[in-house]
């Protein structure tokens, strides 16, 4: 239910944005202008003739809002010329400014985190594609108040000279098609957005240095020509050297570094947790440096690209796909562009929609797409193949928990794929870590921490509205001896893995609380909680026993003094020694909790004692 609703409002949000190559906003523009297929076509033609035109389309989104609303109301198509005019008037910069929030550049701390996120994601993706174990360094220096420089260095494949401009300075559209695969969460428009942000807040270009390891190093400065939306490279030189990878350095204002759970250090720590194959070094503004060591030596499998499944599609994407289709009919478009759409299913769809399925897909209007998406939910589909889902893996998570949190105890699930929305496969990976570096440090105190991921990209923001948070909070922690979950050194790790991540909003920082998803997350977390309970129970019991022992010891001396007088026999000193021995035997602390299993009889004795204690309390 919830997804359908949100689908209409923000088509961007759950579109699996593909790295920086995709402009998450394209569908929005198309959406606004959807009433007229012709215009879209025209726009598309523009895009063809003028390479940068597609971004221009973007640039007018905010302005288009009122217009398109009016247009939609009147059902009167907006003419392409007008749109084009708008392109001219409103630059990419304008677009960026108006959509900062959506792109992750809202708030000073968050902006800095987004910058780092874009660079780190690019590096991880590039390394993954090249089969390289990533080695990433992020250095942040404070230049003046709310003015920082960020430097990102990786050991990836580097970017060939001819592509560097596109990669860092050009907003491209259209490559999303046929790139449906499980990807790291993508906040906005990638590294280009970061370049834009640097330029907007400081007026300065970014520095880059790239080498492919073949002896040639290429460095220069890069900015975006906001009028043409073309990358502008200056001061570039090429020279020989052994460097392989990409180094980017840029200055940003209106950002702030802090150590909060929304900050860069927490982001990198979480990224490292979910990417045990990566080594990430962070040099903070206070010159403190931390390195999250690589804990597995295997580059994760590259996610397979798959055709989208009808159940995972949202209206905006459908319109976008349709308009870019070469097929002549919607029927053939659906069969070609989606998995599991057979002629039989097309027949089923015909009965459900009033849309003329034989017309050209490029003429598909927004309302038609909406109707189709609704109809998709009613048809019983064969589920998408689950082999496109690549979890981090139990051993990998174990290795990284051990490596980064050094917990006293940890447990990781290994669960089968489940389905949500009646057919979209997903896997939940859950882990729990107790003690050591687990939990959130607040001053001297520790709090239970929930670390959320979607396709191993950390979700730092919007925790309150996230299905993961909801699932974890709905657990009765008392049952797992973690009644005070909020005050314990516990880290709950949840990675939601799917080709289609049901984000709640464009910011892609929370997973929607769809019932199937929440239930599976809850079950996964409860599975590890059960394992942790045994350990934590032991910890508490030991602690408890020590307190109990101490409580009784206080009274030994006085008792040993009175008893011989009362009984007219025995000696205080001997009695005291015997009593101490008695108490120590009874409240013996298990030094090794692992040995607990052997001491079942002892356990029973202690439980009995616990019960007695309770009875006593009740009576009082």
């Amino acid at each position, binding site marked *: 239910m919830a997804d359908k609703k949100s689908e209409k409002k923000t088509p961007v949000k759950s579109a699996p944005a593909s790295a920086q190559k995709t402009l998450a906003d394209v569908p929005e523009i198309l959406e606004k202008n959807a009433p007229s297929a012709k215009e879209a076509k025209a726009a598309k033609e523009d895009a063809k003739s003028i390479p940068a035109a597609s971004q221009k389309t973007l640039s007018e989104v905010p302005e288009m809002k009122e217009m398109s609303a009016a247009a939609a109301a009147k059902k009167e198509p907006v003419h392409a010329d007008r749109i084009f005019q708008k392109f001219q008037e409103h630059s990419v910069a304008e677009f960026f400014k108006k959509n900062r929030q959506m792109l992750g550049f809202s708030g000073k701390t968050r902006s800095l985190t987004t910058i780092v996120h874009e660079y780190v994601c690019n590096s991880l993706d590039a390394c993954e594609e090249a089969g390289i174990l990533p080695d990433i360094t992020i250095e942040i220096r404070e230049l003046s108040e709310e003015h920082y420089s960020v430097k990102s260095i990786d050991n990836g494949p580097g970017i060939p000279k001819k592509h560097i401009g596109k990669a860092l300075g050009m907003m491209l559209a259209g490559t999303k098609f046929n790139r449906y695969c499980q990807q790291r969460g993508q906040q906005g428009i990638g590294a280009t957005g970061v370049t834009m942000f640097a330029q907007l807040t400081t007026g300065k270009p970014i520095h880059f240095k790239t080498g492919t390891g073949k002896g040639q190093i290429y460095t220069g400065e890069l900015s975006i020509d906001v009028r043409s939306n073309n990358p502008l490279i200056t001061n570039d030189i090429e020279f020989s050297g052994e460097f392989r990878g990409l180094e980017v350095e840029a200055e940003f204002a209106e950002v702030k570094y802090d150590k909060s759970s929304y900050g860069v250090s927490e982001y990198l720590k979480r990224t490292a947790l979910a990417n045990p194959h990566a080594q990430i070094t962070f040099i903070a503004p206070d010159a403190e440096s931390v390195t999250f060591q690589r804990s597995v030596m295997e580059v994760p499998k590259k996610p397979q690209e798959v055709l989208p499944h009808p159940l995972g599609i949202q209206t905006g994407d459908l319109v976008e796909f349709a308009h870019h289709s070469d097929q002549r009919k919607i029927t053939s478009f659906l069969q070609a562009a989606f998995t599991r759409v057979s002629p039989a299913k097309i027949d089923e769809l015909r009965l459900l929609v009033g849309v003329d399925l034989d017309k050209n897909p490029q003429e598909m209007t927004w309302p038609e797409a909406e109707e189709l998406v609704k109809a998709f939910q009613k048809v019983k589909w064969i589920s998408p193949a689950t082999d496109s889902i690549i979890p981090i893996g139990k051993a990998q998570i174990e290795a990284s928990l051990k490596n980064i949190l050094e917990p006293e105890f940890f447990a990781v699930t290994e669960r089968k794929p489940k389905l949500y929305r009646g057919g979209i496969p997903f896997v939940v990976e859950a882990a729990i870590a107790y003690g050591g570096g687990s939990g959130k440090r607040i001053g001297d105190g520790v709090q239970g921490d929930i670390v959320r991921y979607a396709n191993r990209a950390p979700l730092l923001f919007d925790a309150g509205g996230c299905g993961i948070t909801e699932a974890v909070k709905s657990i009765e922690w008392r049952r797992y001896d973690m009644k005070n979950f909020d005050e314990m050194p516990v880290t709950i790790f949840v990675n939601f893995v799917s080709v289609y991540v049901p984000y709640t909003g464009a910011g892609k920082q929370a997973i929607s609380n769809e019932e199937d998803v929440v239930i599976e997350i809850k079950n996964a977390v409860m599975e590890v909680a059960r394992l942790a309970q045994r350990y934590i129970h032991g910890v508490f019991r030991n602690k408890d026993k020590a307190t*109990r022992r101490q*409580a*009784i010891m*206080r*009274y030994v*001396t*006085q*008792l040993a003094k*009175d*008893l*011989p*007088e*009362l*009984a*007219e*026999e*025995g000696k205080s000193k001997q*009695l005291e020694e*015997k*009593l101490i*021995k*008695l*108490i120590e035997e*009874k409240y013996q602390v298990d030094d090794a909790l692992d040995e607990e299993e052997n001491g079942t009889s002892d356990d029973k004795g202690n439980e009995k*004692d616990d019960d*007695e*204690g309770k009875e*006593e*309390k009740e*009576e009082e």
Partner: protein
Amino acid sequence: MAEKKEKTKIDSSAEIADKLTNLGEAMIKEINANQSPSFETRLRGRGNVIYDEAIGCLRLGEKNETRTFVNVGQAKKFMQTVAVANKCKKFLKEGAHTSIRGLFYQLKFSLGEDLDEELFSEQSESNPLIEDLEVTLDVKREDLNLNTDRKGVVAGPMTLKDKFGGGEVEIDCTKQGRSGWMIPSDVDNGMEFKSVDADYVLVVEKDAIWQRLNEERYWEKENCILITPKGQASRGCRRLIRRLANKKLPIITFCDCDAWGWYIYWAIKTGSMNLAYLANDISTPEARFVGVTMSDIKKYDFLEKLTIKAKDIDVKRAQEMLDYPWISRHKDWTRELKMVLDTKKKIEQDALQGPRLSFVGEYLREKIGKKEFLS
């Protein structure tokens, strides 16, 4: 246990001291056997108070409880109980008495320099432990040389021998003048009846009425022992009544005609919840109630004008008493209590002085003569 308590023989202080010694010896034995020292006591909570129909009093049921030292919830209390026992043993050996407050002060000291804790810091901690000891050892606190406040006065044909503080005096309750003989806390240890030559015992709730009757020398004219508990009867007073009942003297009680007065009667007769552990040591099921009753209001028409309105608490108490099975089983009492609930009236025993001061005596003489009692 209840039967055992029918004894009239009183343990000497030496025997009681032995009980304390045995308690300690048993604990040391346990420690030497590598066990936590412990003792058995009986639960004193309301859940373990039962009405024993056979003897007609409230007593503790059979629910026992083991107190043990090596248990977090019990360690402190255990150590404290032993300290109380040891202290009482000293009192017995010295032949000295003190109050439970005196005992508390004797035991209010620090447990050690490094421990920010006292053996006892509130008297409310030591009081229940004294009761524990009473139950465990089957003795009364008076037997442990612990005094309670004296309350209650006696006049009448009775002489006692009082061995106390190294001396011995004879008390003649006919020669106590206007003040009467004040009932001590302990009427057992060092107290002996020399002679009791009365026909019955009259227990009068209020001191004022007792003074009126004493002035009339009612006890002399009627050859009875005249006692006032001055409200709710103290342990010593109840124990004295019990001992007089043991001498086969009828016990006749005279209280206000209200729930409170009647409750005083029932506490004397069946004992009370709080002192259920003393059971028939302090209860007198043989006691009878002479007045004032609701029926008296009808019988003596002048009383009608002297009634006062029952307060909420009187009504509530009456209802409670109706709910006690040991009271509601008596039909005459059910009737009386229901009358209170219906009429919402009450009458004080003092009202019997309405027509003339001597009427109280006349009323009692008539009713006792006709044996007009409530059960």
